[in-house]
Structures are given as C-alpha cells and as structure tokens.
C-alpha cells in the first residue's frame, strides 16, 4: 500500500510518511474512512506533515471547534505535566512519571473513545489521557498529593488514578498487569451484549511480559472488543527498543495473533485519532481486537527517580522535541487561520487558573485519616483487621 519497495532501507520512526501519498493526488472520490487505513504499513502512518499540512487521502472531518478543542487538550496535558513537576520540586508530590512527548498519543486515544462509555485500562504515564477523558483536575491533583479529597482514599502512589464513573480502571504499577483484566472487561461487554469497547495502553517494555502475550492471544481467540494501544517511546527505563524486541515494530507482533497491527506517528494527534477510531469502530462492530502502536518519545526521564542522561544522548531528545505534537497541530490550525498568539495566551492562562484552583481544592482537604488504612481490604472487616486497627489506635 505504500509507495516503497521492499528493498528500501527501513526509515526511522522519526520521519513521518504519508502512508497513502501515492493515492493522494489521484484520489477523486474520497473513500470512506476505514477503507483507507490499512494495517501493517512499512512506516508509521502520518496524516499531517511536520508543517501542519493534511496528508490524508480522506477528508479531515473534524470541524474547527473540535480541532481547537483538541489543541487545548494537548496544551492541558503539557501544562499538567509541568505542574506536577513543580509540585514534585516543592515536596507536595512524591513521584512523577513525566509524560511530555506523549500528548498526541494520549489525547488522540481519548478523542477516539466514547468518554464514560468505553473503558480505558491505562498505565502510569497516561495522566494526559485521563484528563482528556474528563477526570476533574481536582480529583487528579488529590490523587497525586494523596489528600482526603482523593476518592480512591489516597491508597496509590502518584500517577495512579482510577474512576468508575468515567470508566477508568485504576492504574497499576506492575507492567502489563492491566492488559488481562482489560480483555476480561471487553469479554464482559461481549457477554452482556453491550457496545462498550475497552482500550488498554502500555509502553513498549510491557509487550515483553508474559501476561501481555497471554491477554492479546485470549482476546484474539475470543474476538473481544478491545484495542491494545502501545505508547512506544522506545525506552523501558534505560533499555532501548532494539534490546527489548527483535520485532521490527510492535504492530508486527499482531501478525502472530491474527489481528490487525497499525504503526502510527504518535506525535501527530490526528493520525492517532483516526487510526484509533478505526480500531475502536472495528471492535465495536464485532470484528475483534487490534494492536495500535503509537510512536512517541518521552522528553523527560522515566520517572522522577531516573537519570536518563546515562542512557541517551541530548541530541536525540532534542531531535524529537523538534517534532513536538503541540507544534504540529498548532501549525495545522494556523494554516487554516484558526489560531493566534492571543488565543494561545488566553487558553494557557485559562488552564493555569483551573489548575491553581484544583490544586488549592485538593490541598484544602488535608491528609487522609489513619483509619482509612484498614478500610476496603474486604467488603466487611474481618476480626484480624479489627484487632490490628485497635493496635494502631493505641499507638496514636
């Protein structure tokens, strides 16, 4: 499907390629979306160019307001990441998993989902994703600061939100551990006759875990409505992609399970949105799971406990920053006369003010009470936990 020969050297993920550039100029009738996005492309699917030009063979069917809202979500994700780093430095948050560079992947996934209807089983770097799905910032900050306002009772470390109302399965630290339950949720939707689709996200490292393979295999065998979305940032902490797998791409692994695999320029929110939409609708229509690989890059270290300078060159980081997902969409908006510096300043100030209020609200609720330690282990408290709670009370 690509205008490339098999013998051509593989192109770096850093180079976006119009997956359907061959058809672009000659396409008179714009074919329906879905007929155009084919799995297993040689190079990552990229629907906009670096300078904001639409490359898709089908119409960009998002209106101006939606495009602007997408950009606002990218900005919010970036500013949230920055705010969390500030909270870390001031000692109000104990840990962060920086997400800058992943915004297009996360916002694009959220945009393709029916928020609050479809399920997301995210991983710990998906703060921008849950924000884009509508998790209130105050709840998110309370989760990070482990205050009494956290509806999950401050039981998890930062970057581990969850919300039954918004169909966000609580983030777990163990790598790929959310993938089998995501398949179970999708299986449940199938058995209940619901049209919910489950999306689960993970990094490139997760695809080496046994549970990942076991879950993808089960999903494919049962044909359940789930989308496996890999935010491939090419590093599992310090271990790079070549050491992680001998597969050419994560998407290639889908061949083994007999399901479609898409590799996508994850720095382009529109590419992510359209491919995810395709995968979600495919699942919703009963055609089973797919793997969507979103090629991204994390600008920061793996976490606040990591020093990435020992395993990757600054030049590499800087090169990826040139492909920034915010810049890409902003250029597209500017090409269409939809964005200005004034608007940028205004939206940034708006988001900042919203975060200020949310942090204040989260903080005002104070520390969680000690007795929360013993709640929710079981539906009812058994005798040994009552005894141990009594023991703690005597210490306080």
């Amino acid at each position: 499907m690509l205008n490339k020969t098999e013998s051509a050297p593989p192109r770096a993920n850093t180079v976006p390629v119009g997956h359907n550039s061959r058809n672009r100029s000659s396409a008179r009738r714009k074919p329906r979306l879905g007929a155009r996005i084919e799995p297993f492309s040689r190079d990552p699917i990229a629907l906009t160019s670096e300078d904001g030009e639409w490359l898709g063979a089908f119409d960009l069917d998002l209106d101006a307001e939606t495009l602007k809202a997408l950009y606002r979500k990218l900005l919010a994700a970036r500013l949230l990441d920055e705010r969390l780093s500030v909270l870390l430095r001031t000692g109000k948050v104990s840990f962060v998993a920086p997400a800058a560079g992943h915004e297009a992947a996360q916002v694009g996934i959220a945009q393709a989902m029916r928020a609050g209807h479809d399920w997301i089983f995210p991983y710990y770097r998906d703060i921008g994703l849950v924000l884009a799905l509508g998790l209130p910032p105050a709840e998110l900050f309370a989760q990070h600061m482990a205050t009494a306002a956290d509806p999950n009772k401050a039981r998890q470390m930062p970057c581990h939100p969850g919300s039954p109302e918004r169909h966000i399965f609580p983030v777990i630290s163990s790598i790929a551990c959310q993938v089998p339950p995501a398949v179970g949720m999708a299986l449940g939707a199938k058995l209940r006759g619901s049209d919910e689709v489950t999306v689960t996200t993970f990094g490139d490292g997760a695809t080496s875990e046994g549970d990942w393979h076991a879950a993808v295999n089960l999903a494919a065998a049962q044909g359940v409505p789930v989308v496996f979305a890999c935010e491939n940032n090419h590093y599992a902490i310090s271990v790079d992609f070549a050491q992680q797998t001998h597969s050419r791409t994560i998407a290639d692994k889908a061949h083994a399970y007999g399901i479609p695999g898409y590799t996508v320029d994850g720095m382009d929110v529109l590419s992510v949105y359209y491919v995810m939409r395709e995968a979600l609708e495919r699942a919703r229509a009963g055609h089973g799971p797919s793997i969507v690989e979103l090629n991204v890059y994390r600008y920061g270290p793996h976490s606040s406990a990591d020093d990435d300078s020992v395993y990757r060159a600054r030049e590499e980081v800087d090169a990826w920053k040139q492909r920034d997902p915010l810049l890409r969409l902003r250029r597209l908006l500017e090409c269409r006369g939809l964005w200005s510096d004034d608007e940028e300043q205004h939206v940034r100030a708006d988001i900042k003010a919203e975060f200020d209020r949310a942090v204040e609200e989260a903080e005002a609720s104070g520390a969680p009470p000690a007795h929360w330690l013993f709640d929710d282990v079981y539906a009812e408290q058994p005798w040994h936990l009552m005894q141990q709670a009594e023991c703690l009370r005597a210490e306080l």
Partner: protein
Amino acid sequence: MPVMTMVQTIARTLHQEMARDESVVVLGEDVGKRGGVFLATEGLYEAYGPDRVMDTPLAEGAIVGAAVGLAASGLRPVAEIQFADYVYPGFEQLSSQAAKLRYRSGGRFHAPMVVRMPSGGGVKGGHHHSQSPEALFVHTAGLKVVMVSTPYDARGLLRTAIRDEDPVIFMEPKRLYRAAKDEVPDEDYAIPLGEAVVRREGGDITLISYGASMVETQKAAAELAQSGVEAEVIDLRSLMPWDRDAVLNSAGKTGRVLVIAEAPRHASVASEVAATITEEVLDELLAPPLRVTGFDTPYPYAQDKLYMPTVTRILNAAKRALDY
C-alpha cells in the same frame, strides 16, 4: 438425599448457581467440552454454551486476569486453575489485581470472583500436581481462602464463595474428589466463610486441620479414643478469614493442641493458628501447640505417602502434647 462425591457436588453446585444467576460464568482450560480434567465442570457446556462456559487458551495469567475484568464488568466469574501447582503465572493477577482492586480504588471497584483449584498430594503426581500453596494466598491481603474436606461443605461454601463480594480462592483436595462421599441435600443452603466446624467433640486434646488432612486427623482421633483420649476435632474450612473463636475456645478447653495440614511448615496456616493460640490463651495451655505438617522440601514423588502427615505422625505429636 443423594450420595455424591465431592467432584459431582462441585459440578452440580456450579450448574445450580449458573441457573440461578445468569451473570455466573465459568472459564479455564478444558472446562467446556471436556468438562474439566477432573470433571468438576461436567455438563455445564452442554447446559449453558460456550459463552458462559469458556475454554480458554492455556495461560493462567490470562484466565485469572480476564476473571478480574469480567468481575469488574459486573459478571460473576468462576475460574478454574487445572492444578494449584499451575497458578503461579496467574499469581500476579491474583496478588496485584484481584486482591488489591477494592483497596487501591478506595472501595469503588471490586472483584467478586472465585478461583477454583485442585490442590494437595496423594495422587502420585510429583511436585507439580501435589502442592498445597494456600499460605501464599492467605498471606495476600484481600483474598479469601477456603479449603473443603467434604462434599456437603463443598456445596455450601462454593455457593457462598460465588455470591461473595470479594475474590475467593476455593481449594479442592484432589485426593478427596472421589474418595469423599456425602449425602448432599439439593436445596439451597450456604455455609458462611470464616466458620469452622467441630467434627468430633472431646476434652483431652484439640486436633485442628483442614482439607485432605482431615482424613488422617479423624483416623488419629479414633485411635486416640481407643486408648481413652477424647480428641476434639476442628475442621477450619475457611483459611482466610479463619474461625479464631472456635479455635481459641477449644484450645482453652483442652489445653493441648495439634494443628495438622499437609502444606510445608514454614510460614504456614498451621504456624499462624499455633502462634495465635500461644498469644491469646497461653495461660490456659498445658502444652505448647504443636504443628504436624508436610516437610519443608519440594513435594516428593516416590515418597508421596511419607510426605503428608500420617496418622503415626499425628499420634506421635499427640503423645508429646499429652506427656508434656
């Protein structure tokens, strides 16, 4: 009342629970057309079809993990692990997801699911078909753990486990699958989790056990009776939570206690029960509580019968407690 084996009772109970509540689904390896390698799910596939009785790929992590997701989606999964010895790939999902889901979500999510598994030795299966890993589950906060010794209890406790709001590990001693027979009433009765049962009353010594070791424990009690020693026999049935009151009352009454189970000794359920007795009723004891357990070796093959607590081992310990 019909006389049924333990494995027949389990299949019958699953059948009735699936008829009662259509959110109950069964999944695992060979549970469908084959009816389970021990036939514990026999007839379910024919009655309820492949959606509710699901033959899964051979991957315990996927089986247990999918059960977590099914439970979170509002269904009531009953997963089968073919042998307890094969649960380890699923242990990550049990420990990290099932056990902690309620806690880590502040009570907003939970995983009402049952994971059934044949456990224990005595079937010449070598270590990978014979182990008793219940302590691993008991040690994992958030899991409830049951090990049954009679068909009657299997029915009553499996019903409770399926209807419970927390994940329950339901352990079935495979050497009792066909050896244990009971008159099992067909009506809807349930046995609460955390409730032990006194199998025999006596005032001289308390023998506490559970699962397949109940067989040797009751034989030992009968032999003790022949020499004039009246043993009280307690079947724990639930290992988490376990029935502290029943244990302490009996220990206080007799002052001499053996805790008997075929699992290895270190950090075992037997150790926990013995330690609790020592901490709570030391003044009433006439001898230290003694553990009679399997050995701290991998489960052997050729010495299968030597590994598990024998009647002789129990009687030797009883003598030590009585002579103390």
